[in-house]
Each structure stands twice: as structure tokens, then as C-alpha cells.
């Protein structure tokens, strides 16, 4: 009986035949083609540049939403105030992967005290306003329960507020010093001063870190509405999208897909679970050559017969 033919050694040097192949010329042609395509696409479509939202533009366009966010930052009930690490220590706020709590493990490395950073400290910088100084002193001297009651009442009354020349007019209620504090904060925001105060906090001249103002913006409905208009929300597969009608980040399709399906869609741990899942899938993608079943899949799919059809025509005839 003749011995079974041995499996081919794909690592062995190719015994032939060969053809001339000019790699450097190929690279130069590719460079010309790709540069040319990039130039043509730029001439046709340019690139998007939607101007950023500022706290000033927010406070002017939607003062009610600005004040709603500001009073929850003061009261410690905002999204950032209750976020947990890396901004603060809030019990049961972290996302977990089963029993694993990586968010807590990393710790509070970017501390944010929302009441101090977003309301008290910027207001303290406003000079020559004795009424504001007195309101701040009264607020800080009050017991926490009273502070909460004032801010809570203010937040509840805001939907009924009207604005006259930038000044909020609320129905009668027990807001204590919170009312003049919020009015002053709105004035500061509408003047553009709050943008500057949040970026150049701690009296620093040079600054490239937008943590404070951007997290403040992200707590507001105005910012989110603008994103919704551009189809950028998570529920709108926003991770893949670009502002305007430009193509976006198509390669993120699988990442955003999981946010649309259960069990992730309604899970409080969606971000952590999906990050971990994509980590596992990415590892599997890297390790395809070593995974039985996956590594032999191309052989069964037989697309290679089309790619190497000239070779097979020659060898099998």
C-alpha cells in the first residue's frame, strides 16, 4: 500500500515559478493614487466643523436647562455628582462585570466636588457684590438638610420660571440663598465668565484640560439635544456617526451594536459589560491563527479558489 501523501509545508520556500514584481514602483503608484483620492474627496466634500457648545451659548439659549443642571450640581444630585470614580466616591454608583469592580479599583483620580467646583468657587470670585457674598455665607453656614430643602424647592419650581432680561423669575417659594446664587451664576455664565472660570480653575494661567466645563455641559439637556439632532446618541447608533452627512466611524459598528440589544440595552452595567465583551472579541480576532475551527474556516469557505484561480487552473490541468 502506498504511503498517504504528507501535508504541504506552507513555511517552506516557494520552489517556483516566480514573476518580476516591482514593490517600490507599486508603493509609489499607491502613494499617488491615495494622495490623489484624498485631495479629490476634500475638494468635493471638505470636512465637518460644527462649532463647540460653550457654557455661555447654553446659558443664553436655554437658561432653564442651565439652572436645572446647576442646582443639581449644587445639591449633589446631578449625574456627575453621583457618578462615582474617577470623580467621587458615591456608594453603589460603579459599573461591574459580574463581581469585578474595576471602576472602584482605579479610584478617585480626577476629583470633582460639583457644589464647590461648579457653583460656590466661581461665585466666590465675583467681586463687589455684598448681597451675593451674604447669600454664599448663609448657604455655607446652613445645615445640610436645609441646603437640600432650598435647592430641592428651587429645582422643582424651575419649570414654572420665566426669564426677564436674563434674570430668572420663579414663583414664590422657600429657596433661601439659593435663588440669588443661581441668578448670579446664570449672569456669570451668560457673560462667558463661567467658561473661563471652569477652565482656568485653581488660578492657573495655562490650561489644556477641559474636564470641569465639559462634564458640566454633559449634565445638561441642551447639549444632549444638540447631539440627538445630529444622530449621535447611543440609542441612535451614534458611535458610528459624524455630524452632518459625512461618513463616520464605520469600523465601530460592532461596538455600538451591543448597546441596541438585550441584555445590555437596559443594564446599568452596559458600558463595562460591552467593553469586556469587545475586549474578548478583539483578543479572539488577534488570535484567529491559534483558534481551532476559526483558523480552518477560510479553507471551508473556499473564497481562496477565486483569488488563486490562475494558480489552480495551471496546477490542476
Amino acid at each position, binding site marked *: 500500500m502506498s504511503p498517504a501523501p504528507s501535508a*504541504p509545508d*506552507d*513555511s*517552506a520556500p*516557494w520552489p*517556483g515559478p*516566480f*514573476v*518580476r*514584481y516591482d*514593490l517600490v514602483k507599486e508603493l509609489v503608484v*499607491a*502613494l499617488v493614487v*491615495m494622495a490623489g*483620492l*484624498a485631495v479629490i*474627496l476634500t475638494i468635493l*466634500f*471638505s*470636512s465637518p*466643523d460644527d*462649532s*463647540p457648545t460653550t457654557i455661555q451659548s447654553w446659558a443664553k439659549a436655554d437658561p432653564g436647562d442651565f439652572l436645572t443642571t446647576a442646582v443639581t450640581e449644587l445639591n449633589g444630585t446631578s449625574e456627575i455628582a453621583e457618578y462615582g470614580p474617577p470623580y467621587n466616591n458615591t456608594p453603589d454608583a*460603579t459599573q461591574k462585570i459580574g463581581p469585578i469592580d*474595576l*471602576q472602584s479599583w*482605579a*479610584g478617585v483620580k480626577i476629583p470633582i466636588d460639583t457644589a464647590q467646583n461648579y457653583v460656590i468657587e466661581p461665585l466666590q470670585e465675583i467681586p463687589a457684590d455684598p448681597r451675593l457674598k451674604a447669600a454664599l455665607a448663609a448657604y455655607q453656614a446652613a445645615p445640610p438638610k436645609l441646603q437640600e430643602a432650598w435647592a430641592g424647592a428651587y429645582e422643582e419650581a424651575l419649570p414654572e420660571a420665566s426669564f426677564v432680561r436674563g434674570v430668572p423669575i420663579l414663583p414664590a417659594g422657600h429657596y433661601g440663598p439659593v435663588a440669588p446664587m443661581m441668578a448670579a451664576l446664570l449672569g456669570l455664565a451668560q457673560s462667558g465668565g463661567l467658561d473661563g472660570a471652569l477652565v482656568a480653575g485653581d488660578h492657573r494661567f495655562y490650561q489644556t*484640560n*477641559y*474636564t470641569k466645563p*465639559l462634564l458640566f455641559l*454633559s449634565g445638561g439637556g441642551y*447639549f444632549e439635544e444638540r447631539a440627538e439632532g*445630529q444622530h*449621535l446618541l*447611543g440609542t441612535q447608533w451614534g458611535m458610528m456617526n459624524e*455630524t452632518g452627512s459625512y*461618513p463616520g*466611524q464605520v*469600523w*465601530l459598528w460592532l461596538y455600538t451594536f451591543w448597546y441596541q440589544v438585550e441584555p445590555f440595552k437596559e443594564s446599568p452595567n452596559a458600558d*463595562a459589560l460591552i*467593553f*469586556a465583551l469587545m475586549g474578548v472579541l478583539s483578543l479572539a480576532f*488577534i*488570535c484567529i*491563527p491559534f483558534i481551532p475551527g476559526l*483558523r480552518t474556516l*477560510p*479553507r471551508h*469557505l473556499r*473564497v*481562496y479558489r477565486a*483569488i*488563486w484561480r*490562475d*494558480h*489552480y487552473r495551471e496546477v*490542476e490541468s
Partner: protein
Amino acid sequence: MSEGEGRSVSPEERQMWTTWVRERAVGALPPEKLLPDRQPAYVSSWIYVFGVATIAALVVVIASGVILGLKGPEWWHVTAIGRFFNGIHLWAVELFFFAMVVHLWGKFFMGAWRGGRGRTWVTGAIVFLVAIGAAFTGYLSQQNFDSQWIASEGKDGLNSVGIGSFFNVVDFGQMYTFHVILLPLAVVALVVWHVLLVRRHGVVPPYPAKAPMPAAPSPPPQATPSEGGAP
């Protein structure tokens, strides 16, 4: 004979680190392997150009990025020529991912990891993922509404697994530094490694062909040959 060319290496020289590195490098990739002027005949499909197309797009991305960097991150917002180069940078990134995905599909269907080429696939897959990170930091560096929104959303995913404590997507300074120096270095280093592996191992050969059909057995010779053929 010029210095170092074809001469034998003495035992003392062989102990030198320089000699060791040179001999390993030249042994793995002699010049005709590093820059070959021929390829196996089966390298005859347009699918093979998408690797070099990806590299070409990357060169355009880096070149346009260097020009954007020369004038700083504000420039493209305030001048038309800056906006033009920003466009080149954006579209070159789209072309880069386009070519890379077509290249990846081709290499998958060819089973291009066969014959000890696993590391070539691994480095390529890692480049893909690192490039996604580089693009992410690029979107964060735009200093417009898109970058604000991507930062405010991206922070949640990274914070949930603790990475946000060390990699702060709302910190423009950090993101810009990652984007213009750290991640391009990583991408280029991985691409160089990837290409050197392709040169080292050669382009993967085709899957084995089907055995040629055996020839039909010839009929036995006729005892009385008659003109005119078959009965």
C-alpha cells in the same frame, strides 16, 4: 574588498553586540529578501495591492497630520488652507480604514497565517486596534462639537473599567499628545514589524490544489485492426 563585505568574523568580533545584531538581522533579512524584485507567480490578484494601499494612505495621514501640527490645533478652524489639510487628513483616514479592511478580508479568506505566519496576522490585527485608538484620539482633538460629544460619551466606557482614571478623554492636552506622538509611533512601529514579517516569511502559498484527475486508461490494442473504426 570594502570593510565588512563578505569577510569572515573572528571569534572576538562574534562576541560583540554589534556583530550579533548585524548577523541576526542580515541572516533573517538579507537584502534580496528585504527588497525582493520577484514574487511567487500566484501573487497575481488585485487583492494583493491593498496592503500597500493601506500603507500609502497611512503616509498621507501622517504627512497631512504633520502639516496640521506645524500650525497647531487651532489653525484649521480659522483658515481655508488649514481646513483643506484637515479634509485631506480626514479623508485619508477613511481611505486608510477602507483599504485596511479590504486587506484584512483578503488575508482572512487566504488563511494568511499558515506556514508559521501567525505573528504576521497578530501584528496586523493589533495595528488595526491601535489605529482605532489613534483615530479616537484624533476625533477627540478636533476642538469642535463632535469632539465634545465623543469625549463626554467615551468617558463612560473607559471609566466603567477603570481606564478613565489614567486616560482622561476630556483632557485635550493628554489626548492631543497621544494623537500626534504616542499612537502614531505605535502604529508605525507595528506596521514596520508587520511588513518585515511578510518579507521574512514570504507571501502565504495557496491552499493545496485538488489532485489532477487521473488520465482515462488507454483501450487494449485491437487483435485485427480494421479501417473505419468502431463497430
